[in-house]
């Protein structure tokens, strides 16, 4: 008897748990809700590291996309943006990609934010015909090898960026002894490789550092003996800030130039006074004077737009433009994005057959950190 009553208890518990779960489940599935437009009820996926050490490189672009969606005016369509945290880990990204691919209400994906997860998922999206627009994956091979139709990106790949940066270093700064540092990661290393290639003899020494490193004393002492007239760093803000501070502390006054990994309004805040005069190269034109993007962004999220925020805004805008245009299926979306041309925040947007923004559309700009803000300095040709 006792036993059987216990059995019932368990059954009751299980049933209760089931109800709770089902409650969660139903609320979630209703998330899409009934929309005003019967046939324009879509989701746009956003895939990237929203938590973990690398989230700071991704979050601003996601916020940018959110801002674009918020500012979008369209009575006909109901569009939601669904964020998927991958922690930058391909292992976590593939289930997400398979899910998005399988859910027909997803009409496009912004991402992947990093090259690794993009490489691991692009064939999944290609199979399902989901259009991808990446805001920050720069690895050359993403569009140059194993091309898939659905992949597009708003950032030029490392080869071009590297050339532009090298040109800035030699032509604008007149540097003949450049010290090149990278962060040994998938973003910084290939970029620095291209810079090195283009610089040729103008590079005096190359050093590699680690992500998460804060003490750069060995690099600094190498700089001291190399006496460079410019320093290039391929990496992200977290390491650039202490590197810059230690350089200046050691009395190295050579101009400091970084890649687009440093481009973001939060750069000035992170590097502090040591970063005064540091140059960030970005394949993005200055945002038009009359644009309220920075102000809107700050109002919405409480912080200045960080790295790739404008690209995130642009990526979302492309999708939204497609919906405005009447794209209602994945095929139509793909077709629209392939042929899209328009003025974006970061650049004149268009995609070539590989999914890259055509060379001539990209203008490379050097931005100088003045009093904590990045001020456009000069346009550079790659």
């Amino acid at each position, binding site marked *: 008897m006792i036993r059987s009553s216990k059995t019932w208890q368990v059954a009751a518990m299980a049933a209760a748990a089931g109800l709770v779960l089902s409650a969660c489940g139903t609320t979630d599935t209703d998330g899409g809700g009934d929309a005003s437009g019967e046939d324009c009820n879509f989701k746009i996926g956003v895939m990237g590291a929203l*938590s*973990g*050490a690398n*989230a*700071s490189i991704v*979050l601003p672009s996601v916020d940018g996309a959110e801002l674009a969606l918020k500012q979008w005016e369209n009575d006909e369509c109901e569009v939601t943006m669904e964020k998927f945290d991958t922690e930058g880990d391909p292992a976590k990204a593939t289930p997400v990609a398979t899910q998005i691919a399988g859910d027909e209400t997803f009409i496009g994906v912004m991402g992947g934010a990093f090259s690794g997860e993009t490489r691991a998922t692009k064939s999944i999206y290609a199979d399902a015909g989901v259009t991808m627009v990446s805001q920050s994956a720069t690895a050359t091979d993403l569009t140059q090898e194993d091309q898939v139709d659905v992949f597009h990106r708003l950032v030029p790949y490392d080869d071009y960026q590297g050339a532009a940066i090298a040109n800035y270093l030699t032509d604008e700064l007149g540097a003949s002894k450049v010290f090149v540092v990278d962060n*040994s990661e998938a973003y910084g290393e290939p970029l620095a490789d291209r810079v090195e290639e283009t610089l040729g003899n103008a590079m005096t020494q190359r*050093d*590699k*550092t*680690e992500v*998460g*490193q*804060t*003490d*750069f*004393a*060995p*690099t600094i*002492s*190498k700089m001291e*003996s190399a006496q460079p007239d410019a320093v290039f760093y391929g990496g992200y*803000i*977290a390491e650039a*800030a*202490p590197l810059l*501070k*230690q350089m200046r*502390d050691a009395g190295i006054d050579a101009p400091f130039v970084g890649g687009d990994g440093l481009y973001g309004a*939060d750069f000035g*805040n*992170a*590097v*502090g*006074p*040591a970063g005064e005069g540091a140059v960030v190269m970005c394949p993005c034109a200055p945002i038009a004077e009359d644009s309220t993007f920075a102000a809107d962004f700050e109002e919405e999220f*409480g*912080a200045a737009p*960080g790295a790739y925020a404008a690209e995130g805004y642009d990526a979302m805008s492309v999708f939204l433009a497609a919906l405005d245009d009447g794209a209602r299926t994945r095929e139509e979306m793909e077709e629209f994005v392939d042929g899209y041309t328009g003025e974006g925040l970061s650049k004149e947007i268009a995609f070539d057959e590989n999914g890259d923004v055509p060379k001539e559309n990209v203008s490379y700009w050097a931005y100088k950190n003045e009093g904590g803000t990045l001020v456009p300095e000069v346009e550079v040709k790659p």
Partner: protein
Amino acid sequence: MDFDALFSGLDRHTLDGITRGSIYALVALGYTMVYGVMKLINFAHSEVFMVGTWTVLGVYTVLGVSAGAGLAAVIGATLLALIAAMLASAGTALAVERIAYRPLRKKGAPPLIFLITGIGCSMVLVETFGQVLRFFFGPPFGRVTVNIPSVLQTRDLFTIPGVDLTITNTRVIIIVGAIVMMLALDTFVNKSRLGRGVRAVAQDPDTASLMGVNQNRVIMLVFVLGGAMAGVAALLYTIQYDITKFDIGFIIGLKAFTAAVLGGIGNLRGALVGGLLLGIAEVYASTIWSSEWANVTAFVVLVVVLMFRPTGLLGESLGKARA
């Protein structure tokens, strides 16, 4: 491989290594003391350090000091930041002990369980600064790198004649500060009554409790001391590097833990030796190759040392080896 670079500037690189190692050593103290008394790797200790760096930022922000302030203001603000960081870190360490370890000790759980709750606490603390506080207060909390104003500006103090080595004020503060704090701690553990309790529990917990040493109090003391040292390390760190981030503790913690084991975990002086050796080894390796190999070198040094001295360089425990 560039051995010339190493040997031509050996004094300079050694000094760099000592600077780096001093901070490792201070953080390593927390690991080593907790291990000495509880035979437990406190995985949340790296976050105790992280909390300290945020506290320094908080103090500077509240005081509103910035670079270029007067000497008195600089010294005052730095001392205040030091005390606040020590208090905050010690408080965090104590909270971790009360929440994550004490209930387990009461239940007599095996050491592996402490490891997991430690990792859990570490995640909670990291996410508190990366997510929770950002959610409630917005920036500067969050996942971005935050600048801490360099209240104390780097100046060249003097040049060592003969070797042409320029010594800056921050270097002096870091190295001297770390060594003074370690000496103070060493003296405290060896000379004071409370310190005797610590050593007694480290040596033989059962006998110590028979002799009237309150084990819980000793353990709390150990966490507080270790935390305070991490707080000191946090201040020195911000002086040198000027930044903080929600996950800044992870790598420092890993290095400090390695340093503690290298010197002989449970041994206070071992932490110093291990920290300095690790710092120097990393800088040498970064000079010969580049920084991407520094971590590999650190671990290889560790393995080699442990193969010849299985209990670390100075070996023994907090109790046995006269601290």
